């Protein structure tokens, strides 16, 4: 009754049906390449029958392998005219799977050893006190950022309920000249500051389009000292306004 006692082992100790099969094969001390399929199938099924109810969700995979075993057994029983060559052996599909699985199991053992070693090495989970980052490098800003800064300013202006001064008209040409003059005089222009100085939304809009034109023509360059810092406008070196 040795077998019956062995079957008391819970299904849960096995990592699936291949694990159980390997266990049965090793217990019999037989080679994977020469599985006595009838015996193993009997033992495998006896093992499954230990369970009163099969939970399909959890144990469906055990049944799949059971049906594979029965299929192989039936193939083995078919009368054949000549000796089986390796490729035709109906057990091959199972043997290949067992060999692959065996390697994965062995690899898991080796990885577990590495894990054991590594868990003794402790790494820092948070950085040490770091210098405060003050990024002073100049980065060229994209048109998007420029437009966005302008947009936020316009919103603010609206909230401030600035009254619109009507009747005063600005030409693009005039504004362009004013912008260039201001750049010449100060060397650079603080984007937000400049627009804040504009008296109305219309005037600011015209100035903004002028600036876009100048950037497009590569006469001026817009730079930002770091993200979310004021955008400054400089005449582009080598470009003649």
């Amino acid at each position, binding site marked *: 009754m040795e077998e019956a006692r062995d079957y008391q082992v819970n299904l849960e100790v096995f990592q699936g049906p291949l694990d159980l099969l390997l266990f049965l094969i*090793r217990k019999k001390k037989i080679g994977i390449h020469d599985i006595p399929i009838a015996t193993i199938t009997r033992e495998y099924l006896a093992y499954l029958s230990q369970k009163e109810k099969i939970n399909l969700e959890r144990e469906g995979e055990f049944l799949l392998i059971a049906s594979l075993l029965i299929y192989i057994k039936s193939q083995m029983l078919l009368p054949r005219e000549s000796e089986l060559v390796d490729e035709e052996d109906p057990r091959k599909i199972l043997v290949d*799977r067992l060999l692959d699985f065996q390697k994965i199991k062995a690899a898991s053992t*080796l990885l577990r050893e590495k*894990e054991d070693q590594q868990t003794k090495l402790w790494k820092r989970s948070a950085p040490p006190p770091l210098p405060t980052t003050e990024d002073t490098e100049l980065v060229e800003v994209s048109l998007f950022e420029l437009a966005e800064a302008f947009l936020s300013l316009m919103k603010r202006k609206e909230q401030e309920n600035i009254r619109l001064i009507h009747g005063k008209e600005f030409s693009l040409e005039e504004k362009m000249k004013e912008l260039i003059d201001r750049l010449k005089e100060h060397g650079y222009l603080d984007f937000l500051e400049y627009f804040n100085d504009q008296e109305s939304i219309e005037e600011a809009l015209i100035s903004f389009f002028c600036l876009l034109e100048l950037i497009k023509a590569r006469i001026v360059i817009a730079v930002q000292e770091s993200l979310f810092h004021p955008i400054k406008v400089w005449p582009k070196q080598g470009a003649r306004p």
Partner: protein
Amino acid sequence: MRTRLKDVIESLVFVSLEPLNLEKIKSICTEFSNTEIEQAIQELVESYASNDRGIQIIQAAGGYLFSTKSEYDQWIRRLLSLEQKSKLSHAALETLATVAYHQPVTLAEISALRGVDASHSLKSLLQKKLVKITGRKKSPGRPLIYRTTDKFLTYFGLNNIKDLPSEEEILKILDEEKILD
């Protein structure tokens, strides 16, 4: 000059929470030549290995990283009030080994290799960032394919995916098991 570069690199590795690789060090230490940098790293690693120290520089996932030495594990666990560091479940480890040795691999392939549905353990490995999705297989249904990550390498102390236990090491284990049975 070289001594100072060694110190620069020491401070960089120290600040970095993930292995800092040579390329990154080079792109930061632009004042120094590649040869100088490589020599300085060599010196740095050796200075930690040769001295009696509580911490060391290890190589993992192609980079350099500080860690404590294993002999001080018990005191650190006292400090952190931990019985043991948590480890991967058996199912997760087996799934991870399957991905590592068969990558790029699909969920269906992993499940077939293990003989059980691997989706639950794959999920926990994805969440732990030990495994990642890297696209789709050009086969019917275009299933997602999975690979191990750099974090996987660091977790097991491997510098490169080629450092995984070799076929020979695996076969050796299998032979030993046969003898034991």
